[in-house]
């Protein structure tokens, strides 16, 4: 297949499937407890310069506790998959933790507006960016999962999105149709928050899965936080519900309300007041610094963060809001 055109965007991760197979060959399949703390997991598994993929959808079922810890530990020069990235991107931008981004959706918080700080960071020239789309990043994970180095797609062609990506176009050897090929995306670290897991890392979620099936399997190391631990017997009673098997998981931490201030399907709704405050304080550097000191640098963990933002009473209101219970809007 001859390459017809190619984008100028840099490919930040190695798409070589044989090198990845060699890595996964040696990843442990031992059925042992993966339980640890958020602090230890980030210290051990997130290195400066690593390429990171985040599960969920920006502000829905996000690993907020782990993201705060990455900022708190001052991780730098990370690569980041900007796949449906909203509040997660905003958190890591607050610590200038990354300097390379595969951009599909970044700096915005959908209907809530754009993050002034994340936007400024992306306009500063400090971050190298390649362009993709939400679907093309999803299929880059799929290619990695399947152990192949690329995946064909039929979009991006004819646009600047293609021009600033790392994709290449070719002709199909069967039909002659033109396709764009996108390289497999193997991340160094995946970060995912789920509803339930056993101590070995067998995980369940409820609701939409976004790209988490593929992120879990294509990441070389995987840190999982869960709303609650369940027994291995419970996993075995209903194997249909397992989204991620334990052999993909390196570290597991039980973090109730771990997606806060994000939404967790069938558990609690997003804290819109807190997200609005975050967007507001970003407009003033002094206010923003004080806000980050209060919520990230000055707290030891996610529990303390929640305590400082209304604690269990707030969490109960967000639970009511998730289920649209009358009177829960106040």
């Amino acid at each position, binding site marked *: 297949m001859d390459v017809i055109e190619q984008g100028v965007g840099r490919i930040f991760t190695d798409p070589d499937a044989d090198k990845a197979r060699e890595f996964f060959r040696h990843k442990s399949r031992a059925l042992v407890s993966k339980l640890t703390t958020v602090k230890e997991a980030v210290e051990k598994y997130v290195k400066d310069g690593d390429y990171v993929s985040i599960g969920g959808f920006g502000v829905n079922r996000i690993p907020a506790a782990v993201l705060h810890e990455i900022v708190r530990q001052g991780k730098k020069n990370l690569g980041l998959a900007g796949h449906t990235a909203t509040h997660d991107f905003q958190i890591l931008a607050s610590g200038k933790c990354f300097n390379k981004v595969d951009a599909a959706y970044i700096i915005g918080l959908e209907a809530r507006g754009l993050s002034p700080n994340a936007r400024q960071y992306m306009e500063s020239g400090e971050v*190298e960016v390649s362009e993709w789309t939400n679907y093309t990043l999803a299929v880059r994970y799929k290619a990695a999962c399947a152990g192949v180095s690329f995946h064909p797609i039929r979009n991006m062609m004819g646009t600047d999105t293609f021009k600033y990506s790392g994709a290449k176009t070719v002709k199909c050897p069967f039909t002659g149709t033109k396709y764009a090929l996108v390289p497999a995306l193997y991340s160094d670290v995946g970060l995912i928050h789920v509803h339930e897991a056993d101590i070995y890392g067998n995980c369940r979620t409820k609701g*939409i899965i976004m790209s988490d099936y*593929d992120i879990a399997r294509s990441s070389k190391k995987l840190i999982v936080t869960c709303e609650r631990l369940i027994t291995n017997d419970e996993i075995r009673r209903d194997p249909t519900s397992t989204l991620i098997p334990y052999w993909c998981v390196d570290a597991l931490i039980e973090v109730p309300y771990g997606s806060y201030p994000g939404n967790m399907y069938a558990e609690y709704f*997003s804290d819109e007041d807190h997200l609005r405050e975050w967007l507001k304080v970003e407009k003033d550097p002094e206010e923003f610094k004080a806000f980050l000191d209060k919520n990230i640098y000055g707290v030891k963990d996610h529990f303390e963060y929640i305590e400082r933002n209304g604690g269990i009473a707030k969490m109960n209101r967000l639970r009511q809001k998730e289920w649209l219970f009358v009177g829960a809007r106040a």
Partner: protein
Amino acid sequence: MANYNTMELMICTAARELEDGASVGVGTGAPCAAAMLAQKTKSPNLVILFEAGGAAPLIPEMPISVGDSRTTWKALMASSMAEIMETACRGQLDYTFLGGAQIDMYGNLNSTRIGNDHQKPKVRFPGSGGANDFGSFCWRMMVMTPQDPKRFTEKCSYVTTPGWLEGGDSRAKSGLPLGAGPYKIITNMAVMDFEPTSKRMRIIAVNPGYSEKDVQDNCGFELLKAPKIAENPGPSETELSILRDQIDPYRYVIGR
């Protein structure tokens, strides 16, 4: 004549385009409101899909995120990003609504940047998200946006999502799937479609209170005109009451 604002007018106009039994991929805000209005008026079997994975929900109130719990409320399926996008790839998604900071005469959209230095843009926007995906694969892409000469520009500083590219058959030649592309542009002043051969934007209807001249004066390129230009009827009392009382009671979208 009923009292309404331009956002309400655009949403009601857009909702009328969505026939019963069709499928539509929507984002939050006005597109979602249009799909909900269509579902509550003439198209009860409209299939609404959200890119994060929500499929055919009975939306109880306006979602804030295309991945929040409202997008799967009483839904038929809670799936994945790939599943929804591949529904579009296969050819099973009829409509979508997109937007952007800039749109040109062929319906190409910019939602990525202003300025020429890609690594240090003058203004950075979110990027494609799912827009390039939906815009490439959905049979009929529509845009709902207020009209001004800055947004309706001669040339986008960056093409995030394909319209008819350079017009004519350029989109087909690019490798994008055949037969899909921009369909209608719904603004506060008019409804536009695309002339079949040149694929250039043309006025097909003007909204109450606006003239063809107003539309052209608020557009940065020359618009073609359909042989017969209709007057787009404003929203009905029924549409307005459903929109205000059931769909957006807190005026998140229609209050903008």
